[in-house]
């Protein structure tokens, strides 16, 4: 199996199948990335679509300076930030997480999922992003550092604090 970096370079050379394979690999993860962060399934799908179109548009200028996953999720993080700025709700994101949990997508989540989402909503944004990149996108510390432009040690310490805070948030539920 070709690595992501090989595939993107092949696509730069004109191999259509390389992009199709990349799209197949990351279609669900990227869609999930936006879903978990925006809590709006319809908008998440729109953004995922815009995201892949942006990747297509920018492929000619891609340079393999870091891992391709860092590149992919770096764009996705920027896209989410732009979406939040656009919607003007970044500040109240955490507060609204609770409310939105009961909206249309509740059917797709079990009770445990709702509690996890509520607990994530109480985390500081940077820590939440690191934790989600690690747990859901399965990025390494180095990849998270590249995506968020932070030192690896900072990623590690923030991830530890985020996990501790999330555990504290979930503790009453567990009990």
């Amino acid at each position, binding site marked *: 199996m070709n690595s992501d970096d090989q595939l993107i370079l092949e696509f730069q050379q004109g191999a*259509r199948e390389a*992009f*199709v394979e990349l*799209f197949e690999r990351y*279609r*669900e993860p990227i*869609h*999930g990335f936006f*879903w*978990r962060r925006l809590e709006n*399934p319809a908008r998440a*799908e729109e953004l*995922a*679509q*815009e*995201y*892949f*179109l*942006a990747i*297509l*548009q*920018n*492929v*000619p*200028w*891609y*340079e393999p*300076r*870091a891992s391709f996953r860092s*590149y992919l999720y*770096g*764009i996705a993080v*920027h*896209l989410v*930030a*732009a979406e939040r700025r656009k919607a003007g709700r970044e500040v109240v994101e955490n507060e609204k997480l609770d409310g939105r949990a009961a909206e249309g997508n509740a059917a*797709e*989540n*079990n009770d*445990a*999922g709702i509690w*996890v*989402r509520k607990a*994530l909503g109480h985390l500081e944004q940077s820590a939440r992003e690191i934790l989600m990149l690690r*747990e*859901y996108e399965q990025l*390494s*510390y180095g990849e998270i550092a590249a*995506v968020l432009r932070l*030192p690896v*040690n*900072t990623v*590690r*310490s923030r991830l*530890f604090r985020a*996990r*501790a805070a*999330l*555990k504290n948030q*979930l503790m009453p539920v567990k009990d």
Partner: protein
Amino acid sequence: MERNAQHAFDAEEVMAYLDGELEPRRAAALAAHLVSCSECQEVAQGFRALSERMLSFEVGHPSAGMNEKVLAALDAGKSSSVSSAKDVPVHKGWMWPGLFSHPRVWAISGAAIVIALVVIGIPGRHGLPAPASHALREQSSGYKSWLSKDGTSLEHPQDFADVKSPANALPASSGKMPVFSESEPAPPASADEALKAPESVGPMIVQTASLNILATNYDEASVAIEKLAAAHGGYVEKLDAKAQNGNGQELSAALRVPTKQLDGFLADVRKLGHVEEETRSNEEVSDQYVDLQARLKSARATEQRLIELLGTRTGKLQDVLEAERELARVRGEIEAMQGQSAILVHRVNYATVQVDLSEEYRQVLGSGPISTGTKIRNAAVEGFANLESGAVGLLVFLFAVGPALLFWLAILLVPVWFVWKRFWVRARS
């Protein structure tokens, strides 16, 4: 997840081990430790349980419509169908070409270069001529050609290599220009390497020259200036040409030429015509460079200490946040100083030459009598223009004075009317 400080492994290390992020030797020790330490097993189990619990936050699947649209865009050649994604922010670190294709970035870069030039100044260089009303062309290349994409290093082959080598720099007492050798080593790979070791560097001199030349063959001379700059490894920074009726053509060019090529370049430029005025000046900037390097070194040491502090800290969260803010500030200072240092080195390596070229103007005889038809047409056009300007002038006058005139007439006419009526009635009676 709080742990006894005396424990062999802290909880953060256990977490890194489970994530596969602990260094191999430490990971092996921790794996052996976990076998016998129930406390660490409990911590590890806590992390595993948390990860499993997080997976209960499930999401749906993308629709088939998304696949079709993306693959359709792929088949359409990544052009028209992706236009809707043009505003999507892209990870800047890996997208410089895309970033620089944006006109706003060019505008901001241009403004930054202009501000930098104004702040830094170029000693001995007189103000550039104001743009003439009949300017024919203008060209400006700025610093973008030699600053690297991240703005922290240089891309010209001569940069830094000249400055690094003490053999190239003449003693300050020699009173001569530093002569740079062609056989210098290649430019260093990183800005860090390039900007270090100022102690062994000789005097760093910024050179400027200015020439006023009267050209007998202006057209050839104006073309030759650009070619000469390129031939000597330099480039045109700014170029203005203008021609006004009744005067000869004039060209003003700001050129950047490698310092080691300056004498040869000036000799060639002098051949373009009669040199009416020539000035040269030197400015030593060694102290600025050394000071900049010292501050850079200090800032890097501070940055390193902060990084170590953050990596090993056990203090309060607030302390960590403050340390991170300080780290961001120090990094900003370092980047700014690297940029200043790069500009300084470029000014040393590339002399500034201001060339003002004037045409030796000869009055041209008239091209013959104008035909009667042309005269009538010109007169008609002039007459129409006069009519138009007169009408516009009248309208302007009426709008400007009219309201006030009506007001005063209304004020004055009422008493005049009464006086006249009274007089008229008496006269009749």
